[in-house]
């Protein structure tokens, strides 16, 4: 474009050009619409370079919103690559300050070998977007129209760049937002997932906790054992309902109080020392699983307990829990069992002593049967209980039944012994008026079992209205029983004739009371009187003392005891006792 036209026709042409250029510049935004800043700048530069026939056009865009600064330079064909954009930028740096208002309208410099005029224009109202610089070697540069076009172009570019920036900023923000959203979304998803898991876990844990808490609570609440927890200071923290039954304390009464209140006085110091020692050293001075101790009830009564301890550390604090079982019943049962056994041993010893003392082996054998039956049952039951106790396998109900049996049989045995003792007294003779028939009958009853066993037929011919005798009842019983037992033994080997025992009582010629015990047994071989010798016996288990003792007993009553052969078989033993004058039963 020839900008130096002087004539009106030229001027009109010139203006015509200018208007065309302006239209082109105004059309520029349509070309770069929606484009990137770099593309806008390039389009602008190319358009200006061509329209204004410039030697160079340079744009620098300031960095904004994280975008790197852009420096672009275009040269006319002839000046290709005469300088690098940053070299131009460095030259401009010295001239163009921060405020576009203060920029020179025109600058002169050399480009290559030519002097050129340079026009700087700010992009954006305050030059905040950047700067556009147009340079030409023509001397009349810039003409007014050229300045107009440049400034309009700069404005257009500013708007376009502004928009582009806005768009890119929006895009950036949008994508950043998208990214952030996406990131947040994944974060959230992960978090959600974690949360879900955590919730599930927590719920699980809570369920577990609830059910185990529930379980524990139920166990503790309904336990037969007292469950008592204490802290490091020895104060009770928790006590379950069984505590009331076992100790007599309401749980509320003892919470916060020292555990030692559940112990007897003498145990307290011991416990405190032991507990202190444990806290200090961690050394247990007693077994924590099932130790037998003595406890004290609210009413002061002491009783046996079996205690197991557990320790729990929570928040650095130690919690001790004791499971306390009342074993006083068991202890009592064990004591009873031991007592029964001791009793039994004593009974047996007594029996042995009695049996030795009386020197009536066969009598005691008969009585022994009576005593041995219950004793056998007692020993069997006791042994069975001891076996089960040793295996810790004894149910209270079983134990109770066995003990009841033991008690019943013990009573039975002692009743038999009482009967024996009644007629084998160790005291000196205690003479009283007696009805001899009564004593005879008693003894036949006592020997009843033996008589029955030996299939002996008993005949009693007792004279009624006999006078009383002055005698020691027990000693008389002893004499009679010995005679009866001897008769039974003499009948035992009899097989081919009836086994007969006849007991008679009557008054003899000397007005004494006479008792005869006759049998159909083996009888005597030779010298009859030998049978009264101490230690004469023909029996495996006999002592040979029965008749000798009996004779001395009868004689100590002023009577006599003798033996005669029976007819056709057997023996007759007779004894007399002086009658008390003027008495009759």
């Amino acid at each position, binding site marked *: 474009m020839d900008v130096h036209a002087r004539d009106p026709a030229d001027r009109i042409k010139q203006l015509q050009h200018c208007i065309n250029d302006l239209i082109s510049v105004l059309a520029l935004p349509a070309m770069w619409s929606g484009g990137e800043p770099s593309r806008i700048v390039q389009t602008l530069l190319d358009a200006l370079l061509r329209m204004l026939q410039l030697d160079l056009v340079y744009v620098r865009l300031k960095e904004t919103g994280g975008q790197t600064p852009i420096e672009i330079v275009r040269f006319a064909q002839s000046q290709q690559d005469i300088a690098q954009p940053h070299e131009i930028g460095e030259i401009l740096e010295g001239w163009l300050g921060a405020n576009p208002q203060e920029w020179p309208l025109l600058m002169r410099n050399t480009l290559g070998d030519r002097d050129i005029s340079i026009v700087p224009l700010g992009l954006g109202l305050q030059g905040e977007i950047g700067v556009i610089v147009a340079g030409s070697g023509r001397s009349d540069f810039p003409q007014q129209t050229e300045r107009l076009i440049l400034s309009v172009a700069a404005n257009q570019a500013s708007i376009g760049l502004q928009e582009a920036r806005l768009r890119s900023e929006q895009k950036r923000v949008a994508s950043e937002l998208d990214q952030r959203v996406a990131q947040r979304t994944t974060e959230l998803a992960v978090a959600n997932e974690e949360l879900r898991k955590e919730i599930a876990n927590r719920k699980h844990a809570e369920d577990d906790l609830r059910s185990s808490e529930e379980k524990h609570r139920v166990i503790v609440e309904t336990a037969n054992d007292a469950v008592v927890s204490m802290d490091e200071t020895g104060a009770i923290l928790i006590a379950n309902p069984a505590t009331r039954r076992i100790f007599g304390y309401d749980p509320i009464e003892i919470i916060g109080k020292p555990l030692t209140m559940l112990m007897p006085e003498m145990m307290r110091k011991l416990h405190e020392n032991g507990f202190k020692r444990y806290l200090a050293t961690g050394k247990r001075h007693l077994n924590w699983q099932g130790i037998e101790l003595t406890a004290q009830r609210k009413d002061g009564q002491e009783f046996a307990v079996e205690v197991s301890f557990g320790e729990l550390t929570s928040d650095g604090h130690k919690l001790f829990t004791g499971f306390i079982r009342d074993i006083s019943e068991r202890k009592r049962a064990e004591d009873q069992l031991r007592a029964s056994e001791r009793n039994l041993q004593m009974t047996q010893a007594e029996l042995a002593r009695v049996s030795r003392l009386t020197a009536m082996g066969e009598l005691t054998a008969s009585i022994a*049967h009576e005593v041995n*039956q219950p004793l056998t049952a007692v020993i069997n039951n006791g042994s069975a209980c001891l076996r089960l106790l040793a295996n810790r396998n004894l149910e209270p109900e079983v134990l109770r039944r066995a003990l009841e049996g033991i008690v019943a049989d013990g009573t039975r045995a002692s009743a038999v012994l009482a009967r024996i003792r009644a007629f084998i007294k160790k005291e000196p003779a205690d003479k009283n008026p007696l009805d001899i028939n009564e004593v005879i009958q008693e003894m036949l009853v006592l020997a009843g079992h033996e008589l029955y066993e030996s299939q002996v037929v008993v005949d009693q011919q007792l004279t009624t209205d006999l006078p009383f005798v002055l005698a020691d009842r027990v000693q008389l019983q002893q004499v009679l029983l010995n005679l009866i037992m001897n008769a039974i033994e003499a009948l035992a080997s009899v097989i081919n004739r009836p086994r007969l025992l006849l007991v008679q009582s009557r008054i003899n010629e000397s007005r004494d009371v006479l008792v005869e015990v006759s049998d159909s047994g083996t009888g005597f071989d030779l010298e009859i009187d030998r049978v009264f010798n101490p230690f004469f016996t023909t029996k495996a288990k006999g002592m040979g003392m029965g008749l000798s003792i009996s004779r001395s007993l009868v004689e100590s009553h002023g009577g006599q005891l003798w033996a005669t052969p029976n007819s056709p078989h057997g023996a007759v033993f007779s004894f007399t006792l002086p009658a008390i004058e003027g008495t009759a039963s």
Partner: protein
Amino acid sequence: MTNAPVVFVVDDDQSVRSSLKFLLSTVGLHVESFDSADAFLRKNLPDSPSCLVLDVRLPGLSGLDFQRELGARKINIPIVFLTGHGDIPMSVRAMKAGAVEFLTKPFRDQDLLDAVRIALERDRTRREHEKEVLILQQRFDSLTSREREVISLVVSGMLNKQIADQLGTAESTVKVQRSRALEKMHAESLVDMVRMIEKLNGPSGRLR
């Protein structure tokens, strides 16, 4: 095969009976008790090792008479006798008649348990032996009369030729009958066969 062992207790004293049952039960033994010999005899005995704990002084039938009665009925149950007081002649007689033990009441629990254990073991062995004999008996019954003849002669130590002569047959026939008999008896050798025949001739066998 073997059922749980059973201990039969016969004692007229109720306390003794139940205490025996309790004691024996502590070692896991099954106990059935009776108050008289008759009550026990009315009971069908199970096919399992068993023994009898018996009071000597029983009303009605005495313990020793009862033992005799059981023998007469071919009831081979081992007996542990209990008595109220040691009676030496009686215990000697009982032991001679095959009692396992004779315990004086009251006895140590271990003594009773030991005696019962021995008695049950004895019964178990006897039962096993009886079963074995029964099987042998069945095999022996499956022999022909000629095979039995041959076998009894073989066992008596005769040679095939002698047997053939005595029975009036060929030696080869005797050989065949002899090997067939061994096969039927499941005898691995002649020695094995002799042992089997001895068992069959023994106390629980039928051969005489």
